[in-house]
């Protein structure tokens, strides 16, 4: 029988699934209805309310004197200079987390990709930072960073790297550093696990073949490891950048938004506008713009890492 690949796929799919028509309330629809209803109500209703809040404005209290203002809220968010400062902060924070974090995670994954004694033990120990709630980990790190009695300053002075105490929370760059280091510490298990799974799927004989062709370690990395790691790298990039772009608890707990507003990210501003200023419409519009921002960044990442681009490291 001449059957091509698509026919075979359909055949297998028809064997394992069954079509269910639109009109009938069949068994499978009953199965998924509670879940769909729940998600639609709990997420959908607030989403609709978010849209409502975004396009209306009120003077004193909600529902009593709201008027439709169209895109005015969105425009006022986009034209406030502060918002672009916060966007820049968010992107800077994300870039720091990804730019420093992913090479570290890749390095750990490569190190774990040998048959070490007790490899499972190392892997399990590596998972522990992810099991601790974010706020607790941040408080742990904050304790170490506090200038006068923090361990980090003390160790740096002992080793001789610095002369005076670094005031971690009083300077913009250093405040970023504390937040970024903590985030990397927390996210290491996640990235390492995914990258290790990706590394393990690369067959050994590819390395042997490239060695015969004359490739040294670095070239093997460039031409065998990186291209075959592309899907895992994309997954790690997407997951971690999404977490970083909307990260609130870590930065807020660590720096409260930085000296002044220098580490305030968009998520923190939404929280402040809502809770401190009671400015629900502005916060709603800002939340919507944050979603758009995340989608744009995701689009850039996925496009940049799609199969048409060369993954070469010079």
């Amino acid at each position, binding site marked *: 029988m001449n059957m091509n690949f698509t026919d075979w796929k359909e055949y297998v799919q028809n064997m394992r699934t069954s079509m269910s028509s639109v009109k009938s309330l069949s068994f499978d629809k009953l*199965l998924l209805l509670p879940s769909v209803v729940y998600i639609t109500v709990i997420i959908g209703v607030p989403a609709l309310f978010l849209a409502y809040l975004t396009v209306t404005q009120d003077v004193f209290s909600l529902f009593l004197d709201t008027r439709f203002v169209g895109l005015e809220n969105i425009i006022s968010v986009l034209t406030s200079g502060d918002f672009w400062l916060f966007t820049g902060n968010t992107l800077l924070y994300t870039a720091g987390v990804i730019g420093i974090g992913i090479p570290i995670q890749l390095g750990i994954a490569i190190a774990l990709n040998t048959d070490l004694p007790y490899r499972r033990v190392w892997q399990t120990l590596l998972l522990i930072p992810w099991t601790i709630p974010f706020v607790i980990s941040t408080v742990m790190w904050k304790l170490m960073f506090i200038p*006068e*009695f923090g361990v980090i300053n003390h160790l740096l002075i002992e080793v001789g790297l610095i002369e005076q105490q670094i005031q971690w929370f009083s300077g913009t760059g250093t405040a970023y550093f504390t937040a970024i280091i903590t985030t990397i510490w927390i996210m290491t298990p996640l990235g390492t696990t995914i990258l290790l799974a990706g590394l393990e799927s690369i067959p050994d004989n590819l390395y042997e073949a490239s060695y015969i062709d004359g490739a040294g370690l670095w070239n093997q990395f460039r031409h065998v490891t990186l291209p075959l790691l592309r899907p895992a790298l994309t997954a790690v990039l997407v997951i971690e950048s999404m977490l970083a772009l909307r990260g609130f608890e870590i930065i807020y707990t660590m720096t409260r938004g930085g000296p002044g507003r220098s580490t305030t990210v968009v998520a923190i501003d939404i929280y402040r506008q809502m809770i401190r200023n009671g400015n629900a419409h502005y916060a709603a519009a800002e939340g919507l713009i*944050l979603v758009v921002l995340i989608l744009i960044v*995701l689009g850039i990442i996925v496009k940049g890492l799609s199969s048409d681009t060369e993954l070469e490291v010079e």
Partner: protein
Amino acid sequence: MGLWERINQNQALINQLHRAVAIVVLGLVLIWLFFPILWALETSLKTRAATVASPPIYWGFDVQWQNFILVWTETALPTYIFNGLFIATVTTILSLILGVPHAYAISMYQSRLGDASLLLVTITRIVPPITILVPIYFIFSSLNLINTKVAIIIAQTAFLEPFVVWIVKGSFDSKSRSLIGRVAKRSRLCRWYSQLRGHS
């Protein structure tokens, strides 16, 4: 010696080097990962004065085991732990009850509703919780549910359940209906049910 012997010998050397470097790297990483935790544990056993001592005290301080007892008896910690456990348990059970049938329906059957619900699940995972915070706060406060466990459970389940559907669907996708049918038919529950129905 022949080409293959040379290649294998070089490969073995590289592997040993790789292993040695790996152990060093992993040792450093483990120190980096565990030092904060150990430092926090140490701090939990110090007095307040010892905690803010400058330069910091690494060992040789009075170990205050009673800190752990005090935090249990004199603060609201038991309440917090109970709250957390309760919320986590209820959220997990609710998410599983809602999510697993959903995943089964999407994976084993094809329907337009199923495809639409998969899209819904995916979109929910992209939305950042902070964006939904504003409307959820309003809705819950108008229902007088602020500061209750119920509110947290409802909101958390809404965010956890799509995740459950995603993962369980992946698991179901790799199994066929005939396998599930065969396993189910052998279970006592199914046999009891068909007896009840009067089948043979």
